[in-house]
């Protein structure tokens, strides 16, 4: 035993201190369930130059327990679980490191404008989950005049029926220009009176750059309220949002009757969710089903999906590379101490497009 337990505590305390200064987001706090993807083998991921020493620490800890245990390094503050909105899908929560962050900017992308229904639906179902805890708070939906014209204006009756959001709880803001929409969003993001703020943007405007998203993110963090940035037909760009989800529509479930599923009917809406970016760097694709009666998600396993549905679950991406595999390289810390490949991906370097988004100079390790 080269290093005592006291020394280890000191190291952890120091590390927490560093994480606090850096403002790093918390990682997973619990060990992933056994069914979770084995993304973290029994090695230590470390962002510090002294990674080798930490591996020793971990080895010692594991050795003393004498069980081959997964060692999880807690980087960042030990923030309690209320920081995350649990989607109710364990696999998705694990992959996102606890859920969708509650006090942050989250990007929800749709690859095409015609996905606007699914993207808005997914964001609203998250808002609906938030409203379960904060009843009666209003939801603000900001959009440019362009997106409301192209993708349709939110329809309060439908929102009420699907997501249980009362018309009185809804506020819409239609800005003539993107600058105005961003200003409204920034002002709204700092308020605690809204349960959630949705900002909907079409395309990849230059105004919505790293600085703009960072401002939104900082305000959302300090207010403790989520801001969902819905981007229709947008490219993956550098962003300050810790999470980017790519949502497309999935075939709806059939309606359930007493006699079983009703063939040819359109029941609960389905969403295909790809994790485009997350700090925990676990790629994944999930097919979720929204239950409008209970306001909860359910997961559809791909194998069941294939058995019942003949159509393709995932539409092919129209714009070049599929974002999902690229995110395999999204690792905040280069694997200094790990001899084995951490992620199931062949490329070691982030692609040129992805690189600036995920590498901030201070945290490059």
């Amino acid at each position, binding site marked *: 035993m080269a290093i005592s337990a006291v020394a280890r505590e000191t190291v952890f305390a120091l590390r927490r201190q560093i994480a606090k200064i850096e403002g790093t987001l918390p990682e997973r706090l619990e060990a992933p369930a056994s069914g979770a993807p084995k993304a973290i083998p029994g090695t230590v991921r470390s962002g510090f130059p002294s990674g080798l020493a930490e591996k020793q620490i971990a080895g010692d800890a594991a050795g003393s327990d004498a069980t081959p245990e997964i060692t999880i390094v807690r980087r960042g503050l030990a923030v309690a679980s209320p920081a995350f909105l649990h989607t109710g899908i364990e696999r998705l929560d694990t992959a996102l490191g606890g859920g969708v962050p509650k006090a942050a900017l989250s990007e929800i992308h749709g690859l095409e404008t015609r996905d606007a*229904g699914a993207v808005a639906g997914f964001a609203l179902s998250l808002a609906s989950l938030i409203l379960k805890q904060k009843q009666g708070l209003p939801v603000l939906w900001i959009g440019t005049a362009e997106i409301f014209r192209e993708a349709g204006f939110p*329809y*309060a009756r*439908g929102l009420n029926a*699907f997501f249980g959001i009362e*018309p009185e709880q*809804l506020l819409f803001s239609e800005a003539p220009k993107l600058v*105005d929409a961003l200003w409204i969003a920034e002002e709204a993001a700092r308020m605690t009176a809204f349960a959630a703020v949705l900002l909907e943007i079409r395309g990849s405007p230059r105004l919505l750059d790293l600085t703009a998203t960072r401002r939104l993110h900082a305000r959302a963090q300090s207010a403790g309220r989520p801001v969902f940035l819905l981007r229709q037909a947008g490219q993956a760009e550098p962003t300050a949002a810790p999470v980017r989800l790519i949502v497309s529509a999935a075939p709806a479930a059939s309606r359930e009757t007493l006699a079983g599923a009703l063939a040819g009917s359109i029941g609960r809406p389905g969403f295909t969710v790809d994790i485009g970016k997350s700090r925990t760097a676990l790629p994944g694709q999930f097919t979720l089903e*929204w239950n409008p009666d209970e306001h909860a998600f359910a997961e559809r396993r791909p194998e069941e999906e294939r058995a019942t549905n003949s159509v393709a679950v995932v*539409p092919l991406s129209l714009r070049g590379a599929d974002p999902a595999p690229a995110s395999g390289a999204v690792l905040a810390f280069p694997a200094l101490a790990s001899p084995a490949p951490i992620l199931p991906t062949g490329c070691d370097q982030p692609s040129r497009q992805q690189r600036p988004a995920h590498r901030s100079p201070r945290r490059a390790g």
Partner: protein
Amino acid sequence: MISHRDSNAQRIAALDERAEALKLKRGMGIADARAMHPSIDVVEADPEADRRLLEGLADWCDRYTPLVAIDGEDGLFLDVTGCTHLFGGERAMQDEILTRFFQQGFDVRAGLASTPGAAWAAARFHGDRIVAGGEEAALLSPLPLSALRIAPETRASLESVGLRTAGAVMAAPRAPLARRFGATLLLRLDQALGRLDEAVSPRLPVAPLSVERHLAEPIVLTDDIERLVSRLAVALKADLERRGEGARALALLLFRVDGLVSRIAVGTSRPMREPQLIRKLFHERLTALEQTIDAGFGFDLVRLSVLSVAAFDMLQGDLAGETSDDDADIALFADRVRARLGEAAVLKPVVVDSHLPERAVATVPFAEAPQRRRPPKPDRTAPPMTIFPPERPVRLFRSPEPIEVPATEIPEGPPMNFRWRRALYRVARAEGPERIAAEWWRQLPGEEEAPTRDYYRIEDSEGRRYWLYRQGLYSSASQAAPRWFMHGVFA
């Protein structure tokens, strides 16, 4: 010299002193004038511009009194009751007004009297005179009949019977005058002499409360204006508190040194009296108007007026000194957005009892929407809901977009594929139809009945769900062929 067209001939409408010296007169034909003096300079009259100029002057006169009325084409009434002491008395005030107008390049005549009629006569026939109370008769007696503000026909008929001055009319017996020349003559006479009240109707509503500050050194910077606004708002707060009211609409008047007046109004969703909140609202408004407000050489008078008030409900703050009133926060947020981006920037849906989808939800500006109430608790005594409402999309297009439907499996059924925005969609599943007829009770008598719509929920081969409808039926041969529209998108 300015000409205008009067009964098919160009006549002189107005002329300057040099033209008057040439013995030209108003109403003279331009052709005659040119024959007399070929070198005269004639400009076409522009009544619109004259009107705008007069409005601008009226705005400027707001600095003396809030009660400013426009009189005809070339006059302004200022009701200065209770305002004169602010400018050092009647004489000093009139001198200041005349001096300021002169410096701006206007030739102005003024009269000040206890009645509008006497003041009008004093201004038109003396130029710079102050009539003390009770001297109206003495002022009017020697003046010609046109000093009485009566119609030209009445004046002509009075002159035809030998009554040529106002004094002669005053001396004449009243009853025959009224019988022969109508009540207007006596009304005007009584009003001028102060026997009857005459109200000057101001062109702008008078603010219940306003505070202002005259500045020795004109200000130019937006920051300075905002600082001044918050100081004025502090003064306003005391008045509002005394009245137990809050402001619902505020206006900021910026009087520029050279006479231009900028008027900036903001509205609030709920009564407000906090100076820093008022300052925030004006901050947004000034930011939005930054391009349009031209400070020029600066503003030398800033006035903050409360245009409308409402009862103010006091709120008990918590011990931390902050009231955690979410509704108030949202109202303030909406007001700020509104101040910057206009009334329609924050919208609220209001459910309307209608089965036409586009009419079933109205979006109204935040300020006009009914106040938000907490969702009511579920009523346990209500009978259970057995009829489920029909499914509605999450997004609705403002105007339904036409789509091309080449074929349907059965004539009245859903489409097999369709083309929307130049892309082809293959229908995988469909639910429907849900038939929605037009609201005949809204139809005007002569109007043709709108065709019924059959709505279908459609899922395409990629899993996206849409709401389509067919307008019209296939059966009737007389009608045009049915058309298909895309109306909404489901989650």
